[in-house]
């Protein structure tokens, strides 16, 4: 098995699906000739030609809106939004049409497509390049929202996304694009959308994280090595729809619950998961469900971003507080 990073795993999934499914087209700003600003789509235009892998003019509404049209008329688009903060200039097409078309037409039309977006902070980038979108996009009925935390999951989830009957937003945690390598099978395989993964079993507290925060939580668990706390770590993998079964089963066992999310706190994905646990496992709780999140602020520019982003220390502190409540 080849040992590759998350970015290479996405490239491999796209490569294999482009070969496998002639409906697939891959496009976005700079996504064709140079293979994207992060090089996620590198080499694909050369291999599959400019009709199938191409650069678009700078226009997010046109990228998402035309992906919608392509999907209606026989193609399977994989559209890229160059950076998380650029989604807002195209979001009308996503929210008003892509997400709703199956419902609007009572199933006469559906728009399977994949929208890839690098997300989150930690690379000391410019403004609008470090946003966390899971809470916003998780609020839109009709969209599935997926985010991998490992190369293995990235490939399996993306292949599933490309075979899903509904539109899938694929959030790529850019800070871990090249952060670690892992053995990834050469052949195609699928990781089901809507299924969380128990990364590590434990008995004292359930911690749910996703994307880049899984790695930060693993670092936090290492910090707690001498604290005699047994953490059950769940990688949510799919933001929407939520795998409540895996979470509730875990909380019923551990009796404590913590969510880690880089997005802002108020009205966020973490709040949603806490509400879920409150609804379905309240009597199992031994301490208040808690969250470690970004603050309710605009993502600071690079020199101040560390004040906002979730650190392993903040996570381990919250775990200790919950267990010692």
């Amino acid at each position, binding site marked *: 098995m080849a040992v590759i990073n998350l970015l290479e795993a996405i490239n491999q999934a796209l490569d294999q699906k482009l070969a496998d499914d002639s409906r697939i087209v891959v496009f976005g700003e700079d996504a064709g*000739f140079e293979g994207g600003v992060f090089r996620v789509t590198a080499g694909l235009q050369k291999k599959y030609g400019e009709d199938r892998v191409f650069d678009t003019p700078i226009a997010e509404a046109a990228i998402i809106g035309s992906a919608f049209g392509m999907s209606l008329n026989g193609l399977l688009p994989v559209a890229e939004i160059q950076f998380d903060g650029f989604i807002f*200039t195209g979001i009308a097409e996503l929210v008003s049409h892509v997400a709703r078309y199956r419902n609007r037409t009572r199933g006469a039309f559906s728009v399977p497509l994949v929208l890839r977006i690098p997300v989150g902070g930690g690379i000391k980038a410019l403004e*609008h390049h470090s946003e966390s979108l899971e809470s916003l996009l998780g609020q839109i009925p009709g969209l599935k929202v997926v985010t991998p935390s490992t190369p293995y999951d990235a490939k399996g989830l993306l292949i599933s996304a490309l075979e899903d009957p509904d539109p899938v937003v694929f959030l790529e945690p850019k800070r871990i694009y090249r952060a670690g390598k892992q053995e990834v099978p050469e052949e195609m395989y699928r990781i089901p959308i809507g299924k969380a993964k128990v990364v590590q079993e434990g008995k004292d507290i359930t911690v749910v994280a996703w994307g880049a925060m899984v790695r930060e939580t693993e670092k936090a668990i290492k910090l707690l090595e001498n604290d005699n706390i047994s953490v059950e770590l769940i990688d949510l993998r799919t933001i929407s729809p939520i795998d409540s079964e895996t979470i509730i089963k875990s909380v019923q066992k551990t009796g404590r619950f913590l969510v880690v999310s880089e997005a802002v706190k108020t009205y966020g994905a973490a709040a949603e998961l806490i509400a879920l646990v409150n609804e379905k496992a309240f009597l199992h709780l031994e301490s208040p469900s808690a969250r470690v999140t970004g603050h309710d602020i*605009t993502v600071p*520019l690079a020199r*101040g971003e560390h*004040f906002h982003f979730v650190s392993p220390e903040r996570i381990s502190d919250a775990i200790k507080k919950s267990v010692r409540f």
Partner: protein
Amino acid sequence: MLFKKYDPQKGQMLKILDEKANIVAKDLDPKLDKETLLRMYEVMHLARVADIKALQFQRQGRMLTFAPNRGQEATQVGAMAALEPKDWLSPAFRELPAMLYRGVPLENIYLYWYGNEWGSHIDPALHTLPVNIIIGSQINHAAGIAYASKILKKGEVALATIGDGGTSHGFFYEGLNFAGSYDAPLVVLIQNNQWAISTPRKKQTKAVTLAQKAVAFGIPGIQVDGNDILAMYVATKAAVDHARAGNGPVLIEAVTYRLGAHTTSDDPTIYRSNDEVAIWEAKEPMIRFKKYLEDLGYWDDAQEAALEVKHNEYVNEVFKKVETELGAAKLEDVFKYTYAEMTPALEEQLEAYKDFLAKGGK
């Protein structure tokens, strides 16, 4: 008039000072006074030094991402010289020369690219907005500024800059169309530097020129040699006068070239040839402007050498200040400008975080 004569649909491009510093359109020579010309040159020179040094600081790991401006100085400074101080600039993100000409301190510009919001803390009296990353949205902002100027009878013109790639964005059309429908005094300056990151100009649109897009808005459009500072001044002055007189917006396409990378995160050798860059290096705007000043007897080698020393020292000094005094972010700052007054939730979050830090957290 200028816009009739230089019709982009007839392949006309305004050029006054050619690459060898000859005046090729004598009737259009603006005959700017010595003081103005030297101010223009000095700002271009400062921008050039600050640009090159920013790249050096970035390579040394002292500056973060930076968007270089080299090659686009005449486009920007020529246009800015045609504005009055009360006019507005609504820039994109590659406007260091323009912002300097408008009086924005280099300190602000460096602080911004250093990664600190205080870089965008610009004196509102300068009527110059800070860096705008969201492609094209500055056109709408300028349209609104122009509309307000008209309604409040302020006599101000709003000038927005945008790249060739930005003209593909809906905002470009929406803002110009809106301003046009109410004759708002808006001038849009397209800096057509041929590349939107890796995407060439020809992949943005089938339109032969970007200036001809004016036709659909019902406004004048003109294509200008963007490396010819006199042509840039003349075209912008005509546009500003037209807008200020209540005739509505004007679209200017400056044909120029980004000699450097898109940003320091970009590697242009992937998508363009050294031969292409070399052609434009020979046409870069400082060469001909300097020669023009020398021919007029306004500038010589000794003055050039002295300016080089002065600007190098100044830029080093500014960056040192940014690096040692101003650059580090303060915790309170990332919270307290979210609203006019901190909300209870924000205060609680800030206190909890300070408490966490005080106990050794990070």
